[in-house]
């Protein structure tokens, strides 16, 4: 993994505050947990039916019946609970999930998220992503700032089928921390080595710049 991606993940970990119930989406977001200190008071939830996720286990010590939603073999910690899929999403939909971190294909300036379908190329189904995006109290996105072809992923309007509308609060990229505000995207922090111009060039929508010095992560 590039240094920039690793720094993005480390920065995103600071988004998790004590006492939260948090669901980390499949992919980069699951790596965020590596940056939390031992003993940190947080409850991780996985939608296949576990609250209080413990460390991931290697195959030789894994429990065949204990996975997270991404299929990784995980463990329990004192206070963990198992539940069925209806209870798991009751927790999500009723507002008990404080924070989710998700990947993205596109995010719009209004906070619309597209992360589950590319017509004709990728349509495996949304799994639990729609409910996480629509109902978590705070939704943050971890993504590279541009796609593999260098095209912006932060846009005025999403072009791909939506996961949920007006749901994203904050975006962590390899270049910047950007908030979705009522006025659109607003730059909050810069990655070490990134310039304001490089962020503006890589962003496909207007970006409000802060006054004064911009924090670096």
């Amino acid at each position: 993994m590039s240094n920039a991606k690793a720094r993005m993940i480390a920065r995103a970990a600071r988004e998790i505050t004590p006492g939260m119930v948090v669901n980390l989406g499949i992919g980069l977001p699951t790596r965020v947990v590596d940056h939390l200190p031992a003993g940190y008071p947080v409850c991780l939830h996985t939608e296949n039916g576990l609250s209080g996720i413990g460390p991931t286990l290697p195959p030789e010590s894994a429990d065949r019946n204990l996975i997270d939603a991404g299929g990784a073999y995980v463990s329990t910690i004192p206070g963990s609970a198992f539940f069925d899929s209806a209870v798991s999403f009751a927790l999500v939909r009723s507002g008990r999930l404080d924070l989710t971190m998700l990947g993205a294909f596109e995010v719009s300036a209004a906070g619309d998220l597209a992360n589950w379908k590319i017509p004709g190329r990728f349509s495996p189904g949304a799994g639990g992503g729609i409910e996480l995006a629509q109902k978590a109290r705070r939704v943050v996105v971890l993504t590279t700032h541009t796609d593999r072809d260098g095209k912006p992923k932060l846009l005025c309007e999403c072009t791909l089928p939506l996961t949920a509308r007006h749901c994203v609060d904050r975006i962590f990229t390899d270049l910047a921390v950007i908030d979705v505000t009522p006025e659109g995207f607003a730059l909050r922090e810069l990655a070490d080595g990134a310039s304001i111009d490089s962020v503006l060039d890589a962003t496909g929508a207007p970006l409000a710049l802060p006054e004064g010095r911009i924090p670096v992560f």
Partner: protein
Amino acid sequence: MQPGYGAPRMILPDKTMAIEEAVARIGNGATVMVGGFGVPGTPFTLIRELVRQGQKDLTVIKNDANEKHLGIDHLLANGQVTRLITTHIGLNPRAIELMNAGRIEVEFCAQGILAERVRAGGAGLKGFLTDIGMDTDLARNKPAFELNGEQALLETALRADVALIHANRADVFGNLDFTATARNFNPLMAMAADLVIVEAETLLPLGGLRPDEVHTPGPFVDCVVQLQELTAEYDVVQR
């Protein structure tokens, strides 16, 4: 009416059955719910028997399509499935290919909405209203309502002809418990089908499960099959 003082004590009926006999009750064209989320909770042995018996034109309702050469994939490879109601099939390239080639029809649900549709079916309800998926392709063709000033979609309840369930422990009456994340859709589907067939890792006599330990009460269950062995499919997946 409960038995009065001094009345004879009843005994709960024994529902254990040979796997061949239980699965033979499934007909061609049946709608079949299958428990499991990935490997945990998938009734691999019941699926294998369904593949062996070869019932056709099945509608399968399952969270996912397992992975290639596991579980549901055997039904797909054997051409027994015409329709799949699911939430995510990204780990099974065969399912994606069959869908793209138009050889199976796939209906996608948001995961918690699939769970809730099954739960509603199991609770004898006709459906429910939700705002989940309002702004997505999944809202297409679903009736929309205004409820207290908010838009909501009608989601219909799901019931099936058959549910195939994997339990950790069962007693002979069909009281069940599940373990860890192998619970997932199993207790919901065990309530939502006309014929509920359970494979159990451990079969207990009546009283073997304390009443407080029961996750699925026996009255929902029709057939209990004891697993003779745990095949390699139940193992930790080596990636």
